[in-house]
C-alpha cells in the first residue's frame, strides 16, 4: 500500500499544530497526515493529547499555532459545522444520540433541508447506505433498546448519511465487548474499501496492529514517533508509547528497607463491564522503598488502585497493612490505617471542585480531633491545618477560602499531596500522580514521593509513564491483563524486557 500512498496527496495534513490550555500544552507542534483509503492510528497514553488534537481537527478548538490542510487546501474551522462540510465526522468516546428517538430520527437530527421532514426519502437513503456497508439496524428501533455496539454503528451511519469521507474515531473499542470489536473492524474495512479514510485513536496495541496501516505516537502532547504497522512490533510500539530515554536522573536517595507495610494477596476483581480486570495479583511493599507498577494503561491498574483505596471490594484476595487485614470496599478503614492516597482522577474522585481549598484539605481528617470534636467542626483548627498544608507544600493559591477549582492543575495535585502527606504517613499509594501536569509540577510530585521514601515510608507508584517508573522506583513490577508479568530491580532494569512484558510476552 505504501507505494501508492506516497504518490497521493493527503486528504488531511496537520502541520505544527499547537493547542494550549491554561496550564498545559496539550498539543505541541504536532504533524499528522492522512492519506486516502488509509487507517492511521493515533496512539498514546491517557492525557497524551489525542482527543485534543482531534477536537482541533474537528473544529471544536481553535489552533494556537500551525495549520491544517484538507486535500491540499489550507482551512480554518470555527466550528464542527465547518469540519462536517469538509466531509469530516468525529465519533466521540461518549455518544451523542437521543436515547428516546428512533434510529432514523437520530440520523435526521440537525440535517439542513426543508422544514418538513421527508421520512420516506430519508428512510430509503438510510437503507441504501446500510446495504452498501453491511449494516443491519432497524430504522424504527428506539435507540435505548440498542446495544452499545449498535449505538456506535448508528453514530457511524449518521456520519455516512451526511456524506463523511473522513472518520475520526476516539477510542471506539473502549466501550465494546470483544465480539463487537471484531464487527467494528469489519465495518471499518468496508469503509476503507469504498474510499473512506479513518483516524483511529487507541491505546490498545493489538488493535492498532490489526486494523491500522500507519501509526503516529503522541506522548505528553508531542508527536514522538511514526511507524508503518507492517514494519513494527507490539513491544516497539509499547516502549514508544510509554517513553524511551531517561530524561533526567533524580537522586533516588538511600534508605533501608524495613517491615512490610502493604501486602496484597491474590487480588481479583471485575471491571464495571464485567470483565476480569485484576486477576490474582500479589505483592509486598516494604518501608523505605518505592515499588513501581508499570504497564500500558487499561491492564487493571485503575481497578488495583481502587481496591487499595477501598473504593471497590475485591472479589477474591486480601489486603494487609502492617499485617492487619483490611476489610474490602471501605475507604474509611483504609484511611484509619493511615494510607496516603493519590487517586488517578483528581477532579472526579480527589477533590470537591466547588468547595474551598481549606474544605478540600480536611476531606480525610474532618472526623478527627482537633479538626472536629463531638460532631462540631473547629474552624480555627481547620485554618491552622490548611495553612500548614499550603505552606509545607507551597500550594500556589489566593488564600484558603477560594474555591479549589480556581487553582491550576499542578496546584490541585499539590492540594491532594499536602492533605495526604502532611502527617508523614508510613504508606503512600499513588496512581498516575503526574498525569496532565506540567514539568515543574511533575518534578515536585516526584521529589515529594522520594522524600517520603527516604523518611522511611513505603511508596507504591502505579504509573503508565515508564520514565517516571524508572526515575523513582527501587523495584518494578509489570502488569498485563490484570496479572504481574515479572519483577526486576532498578539496577537490572532493562527496557526491552519491560517492553515485552508490557505487551504480554514473557521472555
Amino acid at each position, binding site marked *: 500500500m505504501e507505494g501508492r500512498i506516497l504518490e497521493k496527496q493527503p486528504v488531511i495534513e496537520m502541520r505544527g499544530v499547537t493547542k494550549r490550555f491554561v496550564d498545559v500544552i496539550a498539543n505541541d507542534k504536532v504533524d499528522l497526515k492522512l492519506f486516502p483509503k488509509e487507517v492511521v492510528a493515533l496512539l498514546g497514553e491517557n492525557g497524551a493529547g489525542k482527543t485534543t488534537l482531534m477536537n482541533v481537527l474537528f473544529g471544536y478548538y481553535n489552533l494556537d499555532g500551525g495549520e491544517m490542510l484538507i486535500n491540499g487546501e489550507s482551512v480554518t474551522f*470555527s466550528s464542527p459545522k465547518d469540519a462536517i462540510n469538509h466531509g469530516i465526522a468525529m465519533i466521540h468516546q461518549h455518544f451523542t444520540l437521543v436515547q428516546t428517538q428512533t434510529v432514523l430520527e437520530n440520523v435526521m437530527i440537525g440535517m439542513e433541508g426543508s422544514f418538513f421532514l421527508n421520512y420516506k426519502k430519508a428512510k430509503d437513503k438510510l437503507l441504501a447506505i446500510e446495504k452498501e456497508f453491511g449494516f443491519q439496524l432497524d430504522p424504527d428501533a428506539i435507540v435505548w433498546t440498542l446495544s452499545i455496539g449498535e449505538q456506535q454503528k448508528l453514530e457511524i451511519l449518521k456520519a455516512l448519511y451526511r456524506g463523511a469521507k473522513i472518520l475520526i474515531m476516539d477510542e471506539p473499542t473502549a466501550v465494546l465487548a470483544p465480539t463487537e470489536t471484531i464487527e467494528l473492524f469489519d465495518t471499518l474495512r468496508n469503509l476503507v474499501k469504498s474510499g473512506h479514510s479513518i483516524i483511529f485513536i487507541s491505546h490498545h496495541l493489538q488493535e492498532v496492529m490489526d486494523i491500522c496501516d500507519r501509526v503516529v505516537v503522541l506522548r505528553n502532547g508531542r508527536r514522538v514517533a511514526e511507524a508503518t504497522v507492517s514494519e513494527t512490533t507490539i513491544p516497539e510500539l509499547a516502549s514508544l508509547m510509554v517513553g524511551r530515554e531517561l530524561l533526567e536522573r533524580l537522586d533516588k536517595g538511600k534508605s533501608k528497607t524495613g517491615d512490610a507495610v502493604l501486602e496484597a494477596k491474590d487480588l481479583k476483581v471485575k471491571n464495571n463491564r464485567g470483565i476480569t480486570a485484576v486477576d490474582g495479583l500479589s505483592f509486598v511493599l516494604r518501608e523505605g522503598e518505592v515499588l513501581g507498577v508499570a504497564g500500558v494503561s487499561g491492564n487493571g491498574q485503575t481497578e488495583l488502585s481502587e481496591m487499595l*483505596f*477501598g*473504593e471497590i471490594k475485591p472479589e477474591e484476595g486480601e489486603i494487609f497493612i502492617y499485617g492487619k487485614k483490611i476489610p474490602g470496599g*471501605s*475507604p*474509611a478503614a*483504609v*484511611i*484509619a490505617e493511615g494510607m496516603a*492516597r493519590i*487517586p488517578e482522577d483528581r477532579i*472526579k*474522585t*480527589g*477533590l*470537591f*471542585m*466547588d*468547595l474551598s481549598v481549606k*474544605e478540600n484539605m*480536611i*476531606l*480525610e481528617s*474532618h*472526623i478527627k480531633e482537633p479538626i*472536629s470534636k463531638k*460532631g*462540631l*467542626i473547629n474552624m480555627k483548627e481547620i485554618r491552622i491545618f490548611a495553612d500548614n498544608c499550603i505552606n509545607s507544600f507551597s500550594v500556589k493559591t489566593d488564600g484558603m*477560602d*477560594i*474555591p479549589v*477549582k*480556581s487553582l491550576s492543575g499542578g496546584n490541585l495535585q499539590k492540594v491532594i499531596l499536602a492533605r495526604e502527606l502532611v502527617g508523614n504517613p508510613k504508606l503512600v499509594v499513588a496512581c498516575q500522580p503526574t498525569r496532565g501536569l506540567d514539568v515543574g509540577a511533575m518534578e515536585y510530585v516526584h521529589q515529594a514521593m522520594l522524600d517520603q521514601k527516604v523518611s522511611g515510608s513505603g511508596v507504591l507508584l502505579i504509573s503508565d509513564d515508564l520514565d517516571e517508573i524508572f526515575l523513582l522506583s527501587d523495584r518494578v513490577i509489570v502488569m498485563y491483563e490484570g496479572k504481574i508479568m515479572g519483577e526486576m530491580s532498578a539496577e537490572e532494569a532493562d527496557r526491552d524486557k519491560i517492553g515485552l512484558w508490557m505487551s504480554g510476552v514473557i521472555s
Partner: protein
Amino acid sequence: MIGMSIVKRKPLPGWVMLVIPVAAVFVTLLITSIPILIAGGNVFKAYGALFQGALGSKFNLLETFVKASPLILTGLAVAFAFRAKFWNIGAEGQLFAGAIMATWVGIYFTWLPGFLVLPVMIILGFLGGGLWATIPAFLKTKLKVDDVVTTLLLNYVIFHMMGALLFGPMQMPGSSWPRSASIMDAAFYPMLIARSRFHLGIIISFVAVLVIWFINNKTVFGYQSKGVGINLNAAKFGGINTNMVILKTAIISGGLAGLAGVGEVAAIHHHLMMDVSPGYGYTGIVIAMLGNLHPVGVALAAFFFSVISVGAQTMSRVAGIPIYIVGIIEGVALMTMLIFILLTEYKIRWTKS
C-alpha cells in the same frame, strides 16, 4: 450574522452571591411592571399599594410573617435536601404527613398532661414528615430509583391516604365533608402578640433557620452533606458514609416540611382538611432556589413571596390589578434567579461572522 455561545467564566468572589438575590428581586419587579402596564395600571401606584398592603401597618406586617412561616419551613426543607443533591420535590407530601401527625396528637392525645401536648405534637409532626422522606431516600440509595420521581409521586400517595383518613377514621363525626374534628385547645399554637395571628410557629420557623445555618456551617454532618452534594465520588473516597448522610438529610428535610404542616393545623385551621396547604411544598422549591439554598436566603425569599401574596390584595383593590399578578411575579422571580445563577458560572459570548 451574530452568534451566541455560552462559556464558563472564572469563579466570582463570594459577595456576588449575596448581591444576586437582591438584584434578582429588583429585575423581577422591573419585568413584572410590563404586565401591570398592560393591565392599565400605574406601576408606582401598584407597587406602592403592594408594599403598603404587606408592610404598611402593624397588622399587615404580622400577617406577612404568618404567611411567611410555612414558606420558610418548606423552603428550608427543599434547600437542605438540594444542598446534598437529594432532589426532594416532595415537601408538599411531607407537610401533609406532619399535618396528619399533628391532628392525630391534637385529637386523640387527650390523656397527655397539657404542657406536653405541644412538644409531643411538634416532635411527632417532625418525625412524620422525616420518615415519609426516608422512603425515597432508601429507594435512591439502595435501588438507585430517581428521587425526583419518587418524592413527587409520593405526594399523591399521601394526599390520597389523607383523603382515606378524612373520609374514614379521622372524619369529624356527623360531617359529610372530608375534615377532621377540631384539635383540643392545648394543641393550639399560642398567639404571641395580642389581636394578631403571630403564633408560636413563626418563632419555630426562625429557630429552624438558625439551626439549619448552624448545621450547615458548624457541624461535621453539614460538611459531609455538602460534600455529598458536590461530588459523591470524592465524598465516598474520603470515607464518608454517603448513604447514611443522604438518609439523615432526608429526615431533616422532611421533618422541616412536617413542621410546616404542624403549624397549619395548630395555628391556622385547628383541624385537618384536604386543602390544608395551598401548595406550600411546591412554592418551597421556588423559594429554595430563589434563596440560593442558603438558610438566610430562604428566609428572605419566603418573606418576599409572602409580601407579594399578602400585598396583592391591596394592590388589586387600590390599583385595579388582577390578583393573578402574584403568580406572574413568583414565576418571573424564579426565572430571573435561575438565569442569574447561571450567569455566575457562565458568561455569554457574542460572536460576529
